[in-house]
């Protein structure tokens, strides 16, 4: 599904990613953890195509295609989705209008006819239930005046609507109270499956009480310093990120 090879990237001349290697297979859930400033969100943004970052070396192959050659919207239409850490507020544009237009773009790519507003209403009913959102959210402007939890739920709702093959969830858990975290996690769990791969970028182990990853990677200073199974997250919770940093210094180059 996704192969990242020896990826280096910088922003305004500052190197943020220093040789990332990562392989995500179809249906897998990967957790990417790390302290603030380690580059984990940057990696997600680069996969989604954020224009502020310059890839200086390496490649990202998605379904056999060079992802770096594609614009963010082309990536989205081919099934790459990113849930934002800070979803953007767009006054004047209703949630339902944005989601319908987005979904119709994806459908167009798949050679399907666009849905009209009524058909879209039918389509979205189940998705709303998934994130326990009321239909009135659809008429509100995109994220405008939403609480932190509502914004994150709205991101997962968009994910459910767009039905991506690869979902990048950038700190979707941060700032959520337990109730919101439970709703968001349960939405993500319902959306994970053998046709969808998930890269869950998180600072905290807490969300992994609700979502069980197949792999956990720890990123420090622009590199993946350690990879393992879900038990790695518990070790991190116990010892903190310093533990990984210390280990790395002993062992030299990251795995």
């Amino acid at each position: 599904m996704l192969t990242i090879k020896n990826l280096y990237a910088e922003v305004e001349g500052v190197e943020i990613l220093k040789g990332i290697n990562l392989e995500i297979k179809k249906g897998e859930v990967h957790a990417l953890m790390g302290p603030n400033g380690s580059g984990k969100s940057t990696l997600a943004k680069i996969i989604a195509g954020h224009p502020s970052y310059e890839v200086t070396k390496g490649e990202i192959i998605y379904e056999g295609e060079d992802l770096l050659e594609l614009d963010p919207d082309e990536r989205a239409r081919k099934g790459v989705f990113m849930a934002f850490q800070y979803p953007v507020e767009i006054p004047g544009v209703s949630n339902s209008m944005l989601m319908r237009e987005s979904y119709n773009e994806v459908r167009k790519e798949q050679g399907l006819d666009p849905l009209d507003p009524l058909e879209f209403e039918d389509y979205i009913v189940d998705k709303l239930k998934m994130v326990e959102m009321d239909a009135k959210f659809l008429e509100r402007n995109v994220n405008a005046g939403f609480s932190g939890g509502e914004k994150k739920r709205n991101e997962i709702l968009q994910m459910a609507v767009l039905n991506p093959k690869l979902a990048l969830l950038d700190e979707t858990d941060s700032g959520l109270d337990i109730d919101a975290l439970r709703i968001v996690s349960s939405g993500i769990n319902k959306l994970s499956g053998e046709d969808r791969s998930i890269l869950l970028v998180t600072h905290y182990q807490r969300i992994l009480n609700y979502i069980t990853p197949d792999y956990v990677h720890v990123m420090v200073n622009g590199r993946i310093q350690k990879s393992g199974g879900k038990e790695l997250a518990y070790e991190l919770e116990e010892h903190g990120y310093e533990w990984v940093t210390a280990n790395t210094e002993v062992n030299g180059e990251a795995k």
Partner: protein
Amino acid sequence: MTDISNGNHFLDRLVKSFGPAKPVDDRVEELQTAALKRIAGKELPTPRHEEWKYCNLKMLSREDFLPAAEIVTSALPGRVADYIYPEADHHHLTFINGVFSEEHSKTDRLPEGVIVANLADALRDGNSVALDHLGKYAEWEDDPFAPFNTAVFRDGAFIYVPKSVRIEDPIQLLFLNTDEEQQYVMTPRCLIVGDRSSEMTVVEDHIGLGDNVYFNCPVSEIKLAENSHMTHVKLQRDSNNAYHISRLAADISRDSDYKSYAVQLGAQLSRSDVKAVLTDENTHATLDGLVMVNGEQLSDTHSIMDHTMPNCTSHQLHKCIIDGNGTSVFNGKIFVRQDAQKTDAFQENRNLQLSNSGKAYTKPQLEIFADDVSCSHGATIGQLNPDEVFYLKTRGLQESQTREILTYGFALDVIESIPVASIRERLSKEVERFTKESKSIKQYA
């Protein structure tokens, strides 16, 4: 500046072409004589004049115009009714090139005592409310255009809503300007008086039907007595080659509430001088604006929000979208006089530049003489936020689509506050048309 010897000044030429006014009433005559005197021999302001720094009238001063009433209207559309909002179906006045058209006006189903009429008729009939209030609020200051309008105006709108009467549906004042060979000038005058505890919504709609050159110089005066409420929407869609120079003055009494939404889309040069005076306690004024310029258009808004007494609030959200070689100017003064304690004033001017060659000038001016007030103001000039563009692109939308949506959204929060659905719809369509036609946005397609 005053040089009476030179009879070839722009305004003198125009005034002369209007000929002498028909006497209707002593007070009107007095007012018009004073106005004539005020502008006689007066040059148009130049960019050296601080209030006209970015609004150059040189082109205008070289134009010739005939009084609109003297030209034969040849290009009237088949169905004038198409321009009437459904909510205003039973109370609208139509002016064609500034001349009142009885045929296309309708004022049935109005509550008793309400007057919606041609101002010229009201003055001729000696309506005492009209005579009492005319010319009381639109100050001349240094501005030659308000006295010009005063000196030569004939037709216009007079609206009077009596005590405790509420008109739920909007009253529409439709100014249709036709596509003619001859260049014409019109000076519509509106006088709107809301008596105690009255309530009304008025829509002033200026529409250019072609892309001809004409000069639209309206003045609107509004007087709200105690505890009255008024929503005032002005939509300026004049021809892209027209000149639109207008003045709006609102005098707001105790416990009253005046909300103005002005949308400027047309004219090669549009200038709005807007003044709201909060004359007593517990009043509120809104002066929101949306400006969209493209091509070589210039749109200049000079506003004054004058807080004279305690416990009043004001709101001013002024948004501009600048495309092509367009220019937007905003100069927003807020006065908080010494007695105006506990004033809560909000002002924000946001400019969105779609092109590299557009210009935006903004100058918030707060003059505060009271010490217990809350005044917030902000002014920004910028492009579309790249993070917002990126966000929408990750939702599969193409760059041009993304920019259309964000531009639309930028404009819409001014429109959303307007209480009449069909006006909101009309304006949304205008915004959509503007974004769809934007070359700056299209280049991303």
